């Protein structure tokens, strides 16, 4: 997020796209509702009628996967009507002409034909956004879990740069991170392209920095992202995997093919709390500690590094991941933290080593968080207060790059055999693959198992009734679920939550991924439905 969560309440306009905020980020949704109660305008763009959509001044119910068309048309309206902030564009951005050209023929009428949103609403949204000063954009997986996820994000950042809604309170571009520490996992370098602090692996200077810290050469090879790993796994090119705390056989797209590929690995090592589907296939299963059983830090969506503290001991012999990983490092003759005996290792020392190689976190330490509470990076020195909103006085990288984007339809669209568009998502009462939440009866009371949302028109077309059972199938597999007949979805689309290992939504989803991030297209594939 470019801005802090507490700034939301002071916003004058919120543009929420691809985020079912009330269910996926309830606390952020509270802040949004608070802003609306204080008079902020709200625009919600989502294929489903979400709860927050009911609060919106404008609810743009677009066809799944057509975000680029919607956002291009909004940019078109802004430029056609001269609502852009030309001074900001001239001083702080590059590539304006290319973007102007790329949206030139994206009239709202053309976008209406693709997105299904009335042209007048698209134009109204563009005007509302462009002419409100403290206007913030909020998005989540509804934007990124597409083959064109990166394009979607570029479109959004174009809107921000064209209007100059950046570098001030309550504005900006704000991805709401899904899992608790997505931000921190990326910050810490658990990605093939970046070392800690977003220093590129292909930058020799960055490699030299950590090579010096570790006393080991940082490899220069081009690593695989998760989507590429899953492809390599299917193709038999991966031979050994270490999986920490993820049930890839439930969470990854098109899991049917993966089951077999995983069973053919030479080595699978799983570190987890439970004997998950993935752990059942492993050669070695290492029992891990839960968040309340260990020390460390998480970094939230607003880049705030906060402490995780041990409250209770892990059960039996379970150990925190950091101890397990340290033991493996030691066995490879790499000191987990240079110059520190493993017996003296603490999460504070691990953090210190990580921070020593990047200005972004150099001023952050466990000791400071202990005294001052969570700190937002960038925080380059021990006397720096941290940074609540980014890009004050112009974009951080010097000039904000405007990126022309071409609309590309989703990879798999409905056809005669697979007539429906299937989208997947999350509910308030469960979390990811529900490894944790399905062990809480009070949550199961609300959502005991998997269900599919079907529009009443489609329900009657396919002979389904509310409370009945249905088989949902795609080219990749089929699952059986409860039917919820609901106006929340559009005709021609169905939606189901991805939480349940008994009915794995990801037997259905397509493993096509975004070229840049490797994030899979969980949000759109073609499906059929029949009563059971």
């Amino acid at each position, binding site marked *: 997020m470019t801005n802090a969560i507490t700034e939301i309440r002071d916003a004058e306009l919120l543009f929420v796209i691809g985020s079912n905020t009330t269910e996926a*980020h309830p606390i952020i949704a509270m802040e949004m509702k608070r802003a609306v109660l204080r008079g902020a305008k709200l625009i919600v763009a989502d294929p489903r009628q979400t709860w927050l959509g009911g609060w919106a001044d404008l609810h743009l119910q677009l066809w799944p996967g057509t975000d680029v068309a919607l956002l291009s048309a909004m940019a078109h309206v802004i430029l056609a009507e001269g609502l852009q902030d030309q001074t900001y564009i001239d001083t702080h951005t590059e590539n304006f002409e290319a973007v102007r050209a790329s949206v030139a023929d994206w009239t709202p009428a053309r976008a209406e034909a693709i997105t299904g949103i009335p042209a007048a609403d698209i134009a109204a949204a563009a005007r509302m956004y462009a002419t409100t000063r403290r206007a913030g954009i909020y998005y989540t997986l509804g934007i990124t879990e597409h083959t064109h996820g990166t394009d979607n994000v570029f479109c959004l950042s174009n809107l921000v740069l064209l209007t100059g809604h950046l570098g001030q309170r309550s504005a900006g571009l704000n991805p709401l991170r899904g899992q608790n520490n*997505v931000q921190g996992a990326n910050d810490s370098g658990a990605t093939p392209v970046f070392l800690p602090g977003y220093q590129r692996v292909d930058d020799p200077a960055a490699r030299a920095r950590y090579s010096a810290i570790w006393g080991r050469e940082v490899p220069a090879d081009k690593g695989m992202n998760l989507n590429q790993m899953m492809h390599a796994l299917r193709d038999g090119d991966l031979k050994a995997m270490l999986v920490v705390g993820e049930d890839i056989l439930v969470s990854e797209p098109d899991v049917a093919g993966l089951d077999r590929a995983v069973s053919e690995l030479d080595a699978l090592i799983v570190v987890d709390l439970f004997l998950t589907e993935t752990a059942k296939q492993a050669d070695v299963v290492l*029992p891990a500690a839960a968040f309340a059983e260990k020390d460390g830090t998480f970094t939230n969506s607003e880049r705030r590094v*906060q402490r995780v503290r041990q409250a209770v001991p892990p059960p039996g012999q379970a150990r925190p991941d950091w101890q397990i990983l340290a033991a*493996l490092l030691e066995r490879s003759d790499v000191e987990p933290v240079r110059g520190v005996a493993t017996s003296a290792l603490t999460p504070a020392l691990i953090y210190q080593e990580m921070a020593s190689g990047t200005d972004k976190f150099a001023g952050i330490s466990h000791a400071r968080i202990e005294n001052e509470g969570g700190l937002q990076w960038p925080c380059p020195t021990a006397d720096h207060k941290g940074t609540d909103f980014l890009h004050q006085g112009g974009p951080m990288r010097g000039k904000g790059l405007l990126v022309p984007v071409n609309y590309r339809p989703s990879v798999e669209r409905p056809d005669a055999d697979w007539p429906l568009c299937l989208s997947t998502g999350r509910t308030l009462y469960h979390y990811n693959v529900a490894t*944790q939440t399905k*062990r809480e009866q009070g949550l199961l009371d609300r959502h005991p198992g998997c269900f599919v949302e079907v529009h009443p028109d489609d329900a009657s077309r396919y002979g389904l009734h509310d409370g009945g059972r249905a088989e949902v199938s795609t080219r990749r597999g089929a699952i059986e679920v409860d039917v919820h007949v609901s106006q929340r979805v559009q005709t021609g689309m169905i939606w189901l939550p991805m939480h349940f290992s008994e009915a794995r939504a990801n037997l259905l989803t397509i493993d096509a991924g975004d070229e840049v991030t490797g994030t899979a297209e969980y949000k759109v594939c073609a499906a059929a439905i029949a009563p059971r």
Partner: protein
Amino acid sequence: MPDDARKLYRAERDVGPAPDAPSTLTVHIDGQPRTAVAGETLLQVARRAGCDVPTLCHDERLQPTGACRMCLVESSDSRRLVPSCRHPVQDGLHVQTASARVLRHRQALLALYAADQPEQIVPGSELEVAMRRHGVAEGVPSVTSARAGRPEDQNRFIQFQPDRCILCARCTRYCDEVEAVAAIAVGHRGPETTIVTADMRGLLDTTCELCGGCVDTCPTGALVEKKAAPRQMELASLPTVRTTCGYCGVGCQMDLSVDRDKGQIVRVQSPPPGTTTNDGNLCVKGRFATGYVGHPDRLTVPLLRDRATGQLVPSTWDEALDRAHELLVDAKARHGAHALAFISSSRATNEENYLAQKLARAAFGTNNCHQCAAT
């Protein structure tokens, strides 16, 4: 686009953001001059000055109602005591927060509240703290209220104990104004007045999202976490640990009350409003879904696949770590570093993700390191 609206907007932006600093005034609190900002309440200024003014129906996040009368003070603009939680500051006001008259009122009012409660007030509740700090007038006989309850509610998280309710309406205002689902309301009449749901249904059959914010804001313990209810009287004496929620990316801060002997989390509360990003709020998962932590399904020993039987069998840590290491080294020797993949977790800590990529890069020489849901 209406042209004048556009011009207006431009004009507004050209002069920069509207000045955020409103005019300041002076208020005399217990004889000391204090600066205040127009729009503030006497309570806000008094608390900033360090005065101990008790409140029951007040919550910074909610519109003040002045229902409980606990916060009454003397103010030079009124002959009667005024509820400081909703009394606006004015320049030059003289306010007494601890005069004999105020103290008399406070102790008498606390006596009335006490008389209407079951014999033991919930320790650590705002009511009990106020009684301890300000004293209770003697001689008020206890009364039995006829407050109606709700029929047994099937939800597993929230319990309502009508005999402890003082009708401060914090829970219902929270449910309306913050969670904004309006699942509960003040209902019935006269002595029967209580907290109701539509048709007195159980919370699971209402719009309730089980956020539990009503429990956290309740000043008497009339609302309590169901699982912790049997131990309600000892909750305040349990040690608490401040940590960060392990679910979504908001990173709510939470205080876990812990039973150290049993190694259990007894309940989860939000830190007070205004102190952390989550501003006193938590969602249903953060507050109530910690059951997995001590769940019997948890793995408690390392497991190794037995080469003969193909089954996973318990092992020691050393055996398991040696085998894990050996398998990775073997695979690298036979197929090269690019045939290895390290999948870390966006639920693990920063330190753990750092070590995971260090393991991939420094120990095994590959950049094949990523995590799930890398949004």
